[in-house]
């Protein structure tokens, strides 16, 4: 297959240096120019973290990220921690503080905008879950929809995403072997990662993936995310404070998100489309396509400028889908693209280098999304303990997926935008 990094992206978008829509935008007007990611931290991740609660593991992550930044709790005047935001502000005695309301990668962009707009100076973005998944006969609580028209049909996230994968197989001939290649690649990254919950469990071949027991066809057990416990946090601050910081400052270069509606209430139909569709390819099956275009536009970068893709990997197929939606290959070419080795550590677009949700950790609904961004930051800092991509300067992180009807895309780099 003729995929190469110099080839312009599909759908006619010009690639490197695409400045369409930004002609009037002066360099200093970049929305995140005056903000840096100053600290990142993952706590220990494990199938179980005895003695921890979601709050306690989240606070451990906050301390870790502040230490990484060379800052302390006394410096913090902004908190974004999803359901725990208000509690942390109160219990850590951080008030008066800015309080975030977003989830996933949106937490990072929201905090960056709050700093940029003068609402706070040091924001912690944190999440953690522990002690939640206690009924092991059932799938994890955050994977079980509770909507009246969904629950009686026995859906859970694997089935929701399988309904999208099936349409891709029907439309484009995508195969279980191609999906298994994704799972083997990512699980092998986790196998090599000393911090991964499933460190040392591999290595895997695509045949190993397909030999695991079926879960929701076409997915086998090893095509699916695991479940675990853990916490993570990022610290963002003003760029003019960077000289006081311990770690190499990292910039948010662009971020955008797409939604097609509430997760797990309506059928995850590949062809669901709305009024804003730009063409026939803007539909729920390609969710994230518009977000990627916008994130790259804000970053003033093209696809070929990206060194590593920290893609959200709830299920193997979702990586194939995002490679297409984000414009790294044409619609329908994601299967052959991964089969050709493009996402391997030595490929053109190494993907999910920490082992992702499949092997590194899948600690609840929110930490798993933030952890893709933390790995992206570690990649451009050059500090990954395993599968460090040499010379990585720009990293993409994603979160959310087609089965949930939303997708988020963020770009990180060491060069000030």
């Amino acid at each position, binding site marked *: 297959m003729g995929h190469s990094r110099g080839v312009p992206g599909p759908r006619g978008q010009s690639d490197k240096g695409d400045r369409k829509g930004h002609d009037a935008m002066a360099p200093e007007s970049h929305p995140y120019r005056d903000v840096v990611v100053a600290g990142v931290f993952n706590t220990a991740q494990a199938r179980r973290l005895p003695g921890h609660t979601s709050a306690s593991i989240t606070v451990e992550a906050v301390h870790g990220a502040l230490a990484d930044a060379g800052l302390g709790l006394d410096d913090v005047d902004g908190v974004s921690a999803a359901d725990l935001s208000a509690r942390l502000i109160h219990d850590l005695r951080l008030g008066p503080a800015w309080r975030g309301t977003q989830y996933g990668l949106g937490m990072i962009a929201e905090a960056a905008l709050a700093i940029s707009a003068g609402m706070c100076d040091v924001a912690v973005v944190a999440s953690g879950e522990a002690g939640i998944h206690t009924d092991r006969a059932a799938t994890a609580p955050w994977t079980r929809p509770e909507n009246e028209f969904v629950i*009686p049909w026995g859906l859970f996230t694997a089935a929701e995403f*399988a309904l999208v994968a099936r349409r891709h197989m029907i439309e484009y001939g995508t195969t279980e072997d191609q999906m298994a290649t994704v799972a083997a690649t990512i699980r092998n990254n986790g196998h090599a990662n000393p911090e991964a919950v499933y460190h040392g469990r591999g290595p895997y071949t695509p045949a190993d993936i397909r030999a695991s027991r079926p879960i929701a*066809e076409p997915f086998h057990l090893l095509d699916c995310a695991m479940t675990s416990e853990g916490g993570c946090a990022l610290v963002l601050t003003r760029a003019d404070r960077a000289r006081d910081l311990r770690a190499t400052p990292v910039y948010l270069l662009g971020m955008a998100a797409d939604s097609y509606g509430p997760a797990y209430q309506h059928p995850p*139909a*590949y062809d669901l489309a709305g009024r804003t569709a730009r063409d026939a390819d803007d539909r729920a099956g390609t969710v994230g396509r518009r977000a990627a275009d916008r994130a790259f536009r804000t970053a003033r970068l093209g696809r070929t400028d990206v060194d590593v893709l920290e893609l959200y990997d709830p299920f193997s197929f979702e990586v194939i889908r995002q490679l297409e939606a984000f414009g790294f290959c044409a619609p329908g070419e994601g299967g052959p693209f991964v089969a050709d080795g493009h996402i391997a550590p030595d490929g053109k677009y190494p993907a999910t280098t920490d082992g992702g949700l499949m092997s590194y950790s899948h600690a609840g609904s929110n930490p798993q999304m933030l952890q893709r961004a933390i790995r992206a930051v570690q990649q451009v800092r050059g500090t990954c303990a395993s599968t460090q991509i040499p010379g990585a300067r720009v990293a993409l992180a994603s979160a959310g997926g087609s089965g949930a009807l939303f997708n988020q895309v963020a770009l990180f780099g060491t060069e000030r935008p």
Partner: protein
Amino acid sequence: MLEPQTGVPLNPVTPLTAPFWDGCAEGELRYQRCTACGTANFTPTDLCRGCTSRELEWRVSAGLGTVYSWTVVHRPVTPSFTTPYAVAIVDLDEGYRMLTNLIGVEADAVREGMRVRVDLHGVGGERVLPYFRPQFP
């Protein structure tokens, strides 16, 4: 052969959704049609998803449609489900779409575009669920 479940988890009926569930119990598959723009709406809604009108009337579907996508599930979401079961998205002939389970067919015989018809089954308590089975056995 895939069969209906018994004792599956159910969420409470609301005033908005009661006409749908009452229909199932009375042997009818109901949906809402917008009298302003003609859009067929499902799940039950207070606003037409085609034009935002509130002029919605309940209609009875012929209960015929085609399989848009499906997955055969082998690991149940909770132990209250018997495996395998086939989750499907069915396109109804009236122009709306439903999540359902397929029954009356072998798990490996489900195909995209397969014609199906509604098959109402009680699953315990008062609730009757609209399963779908092949239209032409």
